[in-house]
């Protein structure tokens, strides 16, 4: 086990390096530069800025220069937040996305697994269709629709949560992370519910369950002790990408609730061609995703001895 984990962590380095290199060359090919604006600056100014940020050197030299800084964990200055470095930006924005992501993850996991188990156990009855239909709603309602609806109801009407911002909003009871987390979490809860139900049904159809029932094992023992472990397998496989997706894909909720998280920063940096910030966030997210996939695989191994060699 330790060997597997260590091996995968070591693999992180070449993986991140590939991500970095691919992204670097991709964004150089995309048209539009960081300094174009509706009111064009004179060519001298643009040349000056390109020289200052090293963008006038040949691409290979830029790449190597950037690599040498990254190795020292220095991701460079940002072109849009002109007095902050990329490290500082990630440092202030990520904790916010993390809070929302973690809360959403918990919501998604708890609601999703519970709903999925209930549905699987009561297959084809009301307790199956009801949670599954509500979860369907969660998938069909995009976050950019659910978000404003929740903001309307809980923010404007009930005055329980803030509709915008992150700091200094102490006059409403709910923390600004709650509504974005619910919006995001609802979506993933639906996914997890369906996966749980599917996995549980697969297991519940198997012979060893039948045997257990025939032996008179009580139903709740069958569900929790025997079926759940195997039934959760597809969910566990999904958890890695789920958590990573929650953190990096929170862009829409961050925009709707105007929360200064890293998802928004990333999308804005792409549209502003802020190369260092794009690269910094991509590498950062890449590392997160790889680590979470590792965690998910390890948990999978733990839960299913069949998949061990």
């Amino acid at each position, binding site marked *: 086990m330790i060997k597997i984990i260590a091996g995968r962590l070591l693999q992180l380095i070449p993986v991140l390096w590939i991500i970095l290199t691919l992204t670097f060359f991709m964004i150089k090919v995309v048209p539009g530069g960081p300094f174009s604006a509706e009111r064009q600056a004179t060519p001298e100014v643009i040349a000056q800025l390109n020289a200052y940020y090293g963008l006038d050197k040949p691409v290979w030299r830029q790449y190597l220069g950037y690599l040498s800084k990254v190795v020292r964990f220095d991701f460079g200055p940002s072109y849009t937040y002109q007095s902050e470095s990329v490290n500082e930006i990630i440092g202030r924005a990520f904790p916010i996305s993390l809070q929302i992501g973690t809360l959403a993850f918990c919501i998604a996991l708890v609601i999703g697994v519970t709903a999925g188990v209930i549905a699987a156990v009561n297959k084809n009855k009301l307790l199956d269709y009801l949670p599954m239909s509500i979860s369907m709603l969660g998938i069909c309602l995009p976050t950019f*629709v659910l978000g404003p609806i929740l903001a309307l109801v809980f923010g404007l009407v009930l005055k329980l949560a803030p509709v915008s911002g992150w700091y200094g909003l102490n006059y409403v009871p709910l923390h600004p992370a709650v509504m974005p987390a619910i919006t995001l979490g609802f979506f993933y809860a639906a996914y997890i519910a369906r996966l749980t139900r599917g996995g549980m049904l697969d297991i519940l159809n198997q012979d060893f369950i039948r045997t257990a029932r025939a032996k008179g094992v009580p139903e709740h023992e069958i569900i929790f002790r025997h079926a759940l472990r195997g039934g959760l397998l597809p969910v566990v496989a999904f958890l890695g990408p789920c958590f990573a997706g929650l953190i990096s894909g929170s862009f829409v909720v961050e925009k709707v609730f105007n929360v200064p998280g890293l998802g928004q920063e990333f999308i804005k940096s792409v549209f502003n061609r802020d190369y260092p910030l794009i690269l910094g966030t991509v590498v950062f997210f890449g590392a997160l995703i790889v680590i979470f996939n590792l965690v998910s695989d390890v948990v999978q191994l733990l839960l299913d001895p069949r998949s061990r060699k």
Partner: protein
Amino acid sequence: MAVAPFAAPVPVQAESLERGSSLWRDGWLRLQQNRIALFGLWTFMLIGIMCLGGPFFTGYSYESTEISLRASAPLERIVLKTEFRKVGEPRESYLALSSLEDEFLGQSPAERRAIIERVENGNEFREGNAAYRLSNQRHVFGTDPLGRDLLTRVLIGGRISLAVGFAATLVSIVIGVVWGAVAGFAGGKVDTVMMRFADILYALPFTVIVILLMVIFGRNFVLLFVAIGAVEWLNMSRIVRGQIIALKNQEFIEAAISLGLPTHRIIFRHLIPNVMGSIIIYTTLTVPNVMLLEAVLSFLGLGVQPPLSSWGVLIDEGSRTMETSLWLLFFPAVFFTLTLFSLNFLGDGLRDALDPKSSKD
């Protein structure tokens, strides 16, 4: 009781012959018994047909604007305004009855009400060189802010959404299942390399990839679903790989291997059908994901070009005007939701029908 050794075989009734049955045939028979799944199937086909042929029958165009009409409510009465000009044809434009008042803001509220009542009762009202009369236009779903019939827009949008949804999902299934199965079955180094490759692709910024592709190949509609499909397969491969790994150590696979079956046969004939249930479930989760992804792309300016639209774009536009024109959100959302519900019920039904073990129930 001697049996004639070479007696002619007794002719057997055709019905009592057991027809050779395959997994798929059994599945289809079972599916027909699942009423909810059938409901899903028929609803989905109905929506599909409406989207394909409907726009021809509504009588309205999805693209020609009528900006004076603005966003009129469903079934609201429409007023025809004819302006007589000194030179040339009189100019015709349409107004919603509720915005008729705005034409006469110079007059007192009482006068305005009188005018509106007159027109409402079917009479013509003339003022200056303009004549106002009720028209026969009816918009079942109302109109969008540019005066285009929403029903037609929703049906056209459906074509795009469904096309993108299925094409992209197909791409992602093909790539994802094969990738995940090969990786899961082969194990070892091959598995590691394949999954690391998937990790890398997953961590790449999706927006940048799409912008890049859009730029190199132009704003190609086909490209849109190739791009989306190429990103969606990653999750599918993960799920499939997980299931394959769990299955490959089971006895029936060992048997197949020891029988000397070629690898591709094992993978395609024995492993994948057993994973079918998860694939189908995940497919029915992928289609909505793809459709939503397309909506986000359009929202970022990278999707379908106006005047074409998709359900995602219509829902996005509708959610912005939620408080003033709820129908702009309601109807596309209903179609979208209904389609996804149907696909899901169908998917569940297929899953139940195709699972060889559930026949024992």
